[in-house]
């Protein structure tokens, strides 16, 4: 492995970029925006280098960096990407400049603080995806909350303070348990280094008792389930997503929710396989409830932004279901659906934000017949809605298909219950679309609305191109994630622990009196 500093640069470039913003005058809005955008575009360009240097067939962490940081307890600066995190990093670097462009004019107060927050947030997000040291991971995980808290609390809508505090309390409740679990894992293994702990578990050097494993799994899982969010831990989401400014909603839905499912795939499954298997039926039930419940509640929302927010609960339910089907195809689908959801829900929030910029409302009843004054926005809205509903040729289909196909081979009833969610997603999206865009213009002031300008068209075109590309060129993505998705199941092997437990279980079956 040749030394590389790419991941360090990717992680800290946005943070370093805030220094440039702080040197500009606070009221020089034009240059603040341009500088921030330039930094994130450079960041996006650099992140494309990851694809070029990435070896698709390797299951090792690539672009690795390992430095000592704190000698005791042994905490290392350890970074790396594999097929699981590669595209999540790219999703982050794609969505950040797009979110900035989407909020270009709608943010007029404290402009510098807004863009500084977005840049700090980007550092936190990339850090979460590339950290291979538990402590470092936790550091970025927590650091990312702070700029998000400010984004919602300062630049949000009417109930922003309530939403921001709810968001941060929910997340911290989960992450504090995760921190305890990390410290416990350190007590047991003597290491915070994820690959090292992993290999100790696989080789049997460290054996977790069943009770320990169940507790550790539960602590990690709760933190991630809040983030995803899984029913019934989801009620922070509609508030946070609806009250956040457009850029905040895009990043929240696009990237932050993925940290939950990423965490499940990176920590819960490979570190605690026995517990994962035991909890899986219950988690699947919660995932299916999330899918159907989220869709039904989305369907009846009167606020368009809340509708998109609840649709996330439904879509992320699919991802969780795919992960806990323990099937490589379903895991691939879950990974793909994470990217899809980031792109299409990000695009939906951008579109809702464009309507808000024009009418200063999110209520569906304030719209109606908007296809007449806003043909370009209407066309993109339809395209994105269809992608989100899983129309073949567009990105959502690939992910949903892989998840359902993979889940079906193991659990027919899970897959068939989840399929209801696909029908419902078409219902709530198309019904909302019809009420917002079709028919006669119901309100006079909607008649004079201006259609998308050049900046907005650029943003929408970027989304649309990516949606189409991910719909027809999915192999370019899946061939890079396949090896890592399969490897998760290799990492779930536990020679002694499993065999000992299995032997005991079969002995019990053979001789009922054995205790």
């Amino acid at each position, binding site marked *: 492995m040749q030394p590389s500093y790419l991941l360090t640069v990717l992680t800290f470039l946005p943070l370093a970029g805030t220094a440039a913003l702080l040197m500009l005058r606070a009221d020089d809005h034009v240059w603040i925006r341009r500088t921030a955008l330039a930094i994130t575009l450079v960041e996006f360009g650099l992140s494309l280098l990851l694809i070029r240097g990435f070896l698709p067939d390797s299951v090792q962490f690539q672009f690795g960096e390992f430095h000592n940081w704190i000698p005791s307890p042994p905490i290392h600066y350890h970074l790396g990407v594999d097929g699981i995190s590669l595209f999540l990093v790219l999703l982050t670097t794609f969505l950040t400049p797009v979110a900035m462009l989407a909020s270009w004019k709608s943010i007029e107060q404290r402009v510098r603080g807004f863009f500084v927050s977005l840049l700090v947030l980007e550092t936190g997000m990339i850090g979460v995806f590339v950290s291979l040291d538990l402590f470092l991971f936790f550091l970025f995980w927590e650091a990312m909350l702070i700029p998000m808290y400010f984004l919602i609390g300062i630049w949000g809508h009417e109930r922003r303070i309530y939403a921001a505090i*709810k968001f941060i*309390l929910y997340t911290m409740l989960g992450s504090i348990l995760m921190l305890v679990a990390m410290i416990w894992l350190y007590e047991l293994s003597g290491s915070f280094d994820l690959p090292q702990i992993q290999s100790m578990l696989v080789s049997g050097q460290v054996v977790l008792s069943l009770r320990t494993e169940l507790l550790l799994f539960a602590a990690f899982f709760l933190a991630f389930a809040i983030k995803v969010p899984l029913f*019934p831990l989801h*009620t922070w989401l509609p508030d946070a997503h609806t009250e956040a400014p457009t850029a905040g909603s895009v990043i929240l839905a696009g990237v932050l929710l993925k940290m939950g499912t990423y965490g499940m795939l990176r920590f819960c499954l490979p570190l605690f396989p026995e517990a994962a298997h035991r909890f899986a039926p219950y988690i699947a039930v919660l995932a299916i409830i999330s899918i159907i*419940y989220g869709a*039904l*509640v989305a*369907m*009846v929302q009167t606020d368009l932004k809340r509708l998109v927010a609840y649709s996330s609960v439904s879509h992320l339910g699919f991802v969780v279901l795919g992960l806990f089907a323990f099937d490589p195809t379903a895991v691939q689908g879950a990974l793909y659906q994470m990217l899809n959801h980031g792109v299409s829900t990000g695009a939906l929030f951008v579109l809702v934000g464009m309507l808000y910029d024009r009418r200063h409302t999110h209520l569906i009843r304030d719209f109606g017949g908007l296809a007449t004054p806003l043909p370009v926005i209407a066309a993109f809205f339809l395209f994105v809605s269809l992608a989100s509903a899983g129309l073949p040729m567009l990105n959502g289909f690939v992910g949903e298909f892989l998840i359902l196909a993979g889940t079906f081979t193991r659990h027919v009833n899970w897959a068939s219950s989840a399929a209801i969610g696909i029908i419902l997603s078409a219902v709530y999206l198309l019904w909302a679309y019809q009420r917002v865009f079709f028919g006669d213009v119901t309100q006079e002031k909607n008649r004079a609305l201006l259609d998308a300008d050049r900046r907005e068209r650029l943003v929408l075109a970027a989304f649309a191109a990516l949606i189409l590309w991910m719909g027809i060129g999915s192999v370019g993505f899946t061939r890079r994630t396949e090896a890592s998705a399969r490897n998760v199941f290799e990492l779930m092997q536990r020679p002694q622990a499993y065999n000992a437990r299995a032997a005991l279980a079969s002995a019990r079956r053979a001789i009922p009196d054995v205790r």
Partner: protein
Amino acid sequence: MRPLVWVSTNFLWRAVDEESIDGLVNGVAREAGEFGDRLRHLNSGNTRTYAAWVILGAVVLTTLLVWAVR
């Protein structure tokens, strides 16, 4: 379609989401706030009350120590 919309609106959204889950979460927050509000009254600013607390604390601690040593 219409019954499904009714159930989703009134049961799933209003009763489950807003009243049960959010009601529980916000209820915990309110209780914590009210508990803190009651504790606040211990800080009355009255020096004699503080002195009484100090004496009470000293008695409790001494009793505990004596009990523990014995």
